[in-house]
């Protein structure tokens, strides 16, 4: 406030200040542009221009040695006829629809448990967070080993209770769910921290009042906790959804190449389809079209979520 008033007050006394105000403004602008320039140029070259370039590339056909020429809608025609696109689309959607809500539900459950003023919160939090700081390459490796049909610990333990475990990562009907289990396992810690912060923002007095009214813990959860947690749930669901649409690391690492594993082809996702076409078989134009479809999907779903949020997210 005062910054706007002061120069004017000066102006009444000194006729020259209009000029110096201008000079000050220019100096402000100069510094602003100078400070933004490195990041702006970097983002321009490595991120913004590539968006344009990818859209352009999606209309080109690639030959050898990275040469490409204009091909109109050719890639999109191929794409929509390609059975693998529909497989990838289906898998990406199943992955998203299962992994995101299940991950959120479990994270909220753990966060509510941790919010009960109990001892050892730090230790629990540390343990639950371990998968978050662990690289997917290592996570995938140990789970492949745990899932191993012949020597894996999981099927051995299932065997002890009389269940014959499936071939987790080579059965096309199971493989996607095997990956989803690992994805949920590794995301719980991160989401839990966000929910825990959200829970700590809910005033204790709300619960005390409800207790006087004779509300039980389950009623309190649905009437107080869940509604007041909706801003956190909204944030987590947006970021998890965008992440789920792009799932690649775990699929690529856990299932291995199409040659080695019959389930891989049936379990590929959009990002996997993009990667193999763009960087393994040299169909850059085709891969670009996959990326554009993925972009459109994410924009649509995010727009829908933004629209729907007014209906269920409580801001006070």
């Amino acid at each position: 406030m005062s910054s706007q008033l002061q120069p004017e007050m000066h102006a009444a006394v000194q006729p020259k200040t209009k000029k110096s105000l201008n000079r000050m403004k220019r100096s402000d602008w100069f510094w602003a542009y100078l400070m933004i320039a490195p990041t702006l140029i970097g983002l321009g070259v490595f991120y913004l221009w590539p968006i344009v370039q990818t859209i352009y590339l999606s209309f080109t056909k690639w030959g050898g040695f990275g040469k490409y020429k204009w091909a109109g809608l050719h890639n999109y025609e191929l794409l929509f006829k390609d059975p693998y696109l529909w497989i990838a689309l289906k898998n990406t959607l199943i992955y998203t629809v299962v992994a995101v809500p299940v991950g959120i539900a479990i994270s909220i459950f753990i966060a509510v448990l941790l919010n009960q003023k109990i001892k050892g919160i730090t230790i629990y939090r540390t343990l639950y967070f371990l998968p978050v700081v662990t690289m997917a390459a290592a996570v995938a490796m140990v789970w492949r080993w745990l899932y191993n049909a012949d020597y894996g610990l999981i099927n051995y333990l299932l065997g002890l209770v009389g269940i014959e475990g499936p071939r987790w990562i080579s059965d096309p009907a199971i493989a996607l769910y095997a990956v989803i289990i690992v994805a949920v396992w590794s995301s719980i810690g991160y989401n839990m921290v966000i929910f825990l912060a959200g829970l700590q923002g809910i005033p204790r007095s709300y619960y005390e009042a409800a207790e006087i009214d004779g509300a039980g813990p389950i009623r309190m959860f649905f009437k107080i906790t869940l509604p007041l947690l909706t801003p956190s749930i909204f944030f987590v669901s947006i970021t998890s959804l965008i992440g789920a649409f792009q799932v690649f690391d775990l699929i690529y690492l856990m299932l291995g190449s199409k040659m080695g594993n019959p389930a891989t082809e049936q379990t590929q996702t959009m990002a996997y389809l993009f990667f193999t076409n763009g960087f393994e078989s040299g169909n850059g134009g085709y891969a670009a079209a996959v990326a554009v479809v993925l972009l459109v999907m994410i924009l649509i779903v995010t727009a829908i979520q933004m629209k729907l949020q007014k209906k269920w997210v409580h801001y006070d």
Partner: protein
Amino acid sequence: MSAYTSLNKTAKNLLVHLMLIVGALVMVAPFVWMVLTSLKSLGESTQVPPVILPTKYQWENYTHIFEMLPFLDFYWNTVITTVAKVIGQVFLCSLAAYAFARIEFPGRNALFILFLTVLMVPGQVFLLPQFMIMKELGWLNTLTALIVPGLFSAFGTFLLRQFFMSLPKELEEAAKLDGCNHFQIYWRIMLPLAKPGLIALAIFVALWSWNDLMWPLIVNSTPDKMPLSAGLAYLTGEHTNLTNYPILMAGSVLAIWPMIIVFIFLQKHFVEGITLTGSK
């Protein structure tokens, strides 16, 4: 009555702990199994029923992996990349964030929308052209390729801008009257105050950089230029197709311990940083 409620409370507490312990076991068991397997011989690791503890600890699995792969190079590449990205991003993003949050200039909103666009777009949309740029510049199979695109971040700028905006306006007015320019205000006044935000960003960048897979997989195909993540993937890939799990587990342990140590020591900051992004 009070005896009853306190008993009830103890029972409830026990139940909460019980559920949390079961959950914690599920979270930790794969790590324990990783370490145990890494110390077994190949024969022992494939025994049915499984042996829990190794009968003889095979520490040589850990030396073995250094003979099979340039693991020291993996470490070096990962550490250099991570340190460079953290320093670069924290510095460059905080500069831009300061300008966006604290200075009024023509085109501010339009430029900020450009930044937000980058934030919204999935990574796959950038990758092909980024790869082509790296190829054009002759940067494939160099550390430069791993580092340079990661120096710039819309997310980092956004995060720090939120942080700078929360600081009171009077701060720089006093400094301005003393004749400080914007860089001086940024450097001397804002940066020290924004420390929690800077640390949060540094942690995010470090975590993503250390664990990033797709980009290194794309640009660096020779093992001695790979970071740990791509190196581990390479180990199981078509080239080596190794199924000696004790050795693979030893490699995994070697790849993940530094981040786990960093996390345990900086846990408070991790949690604050995540909360910061999740709060608005």
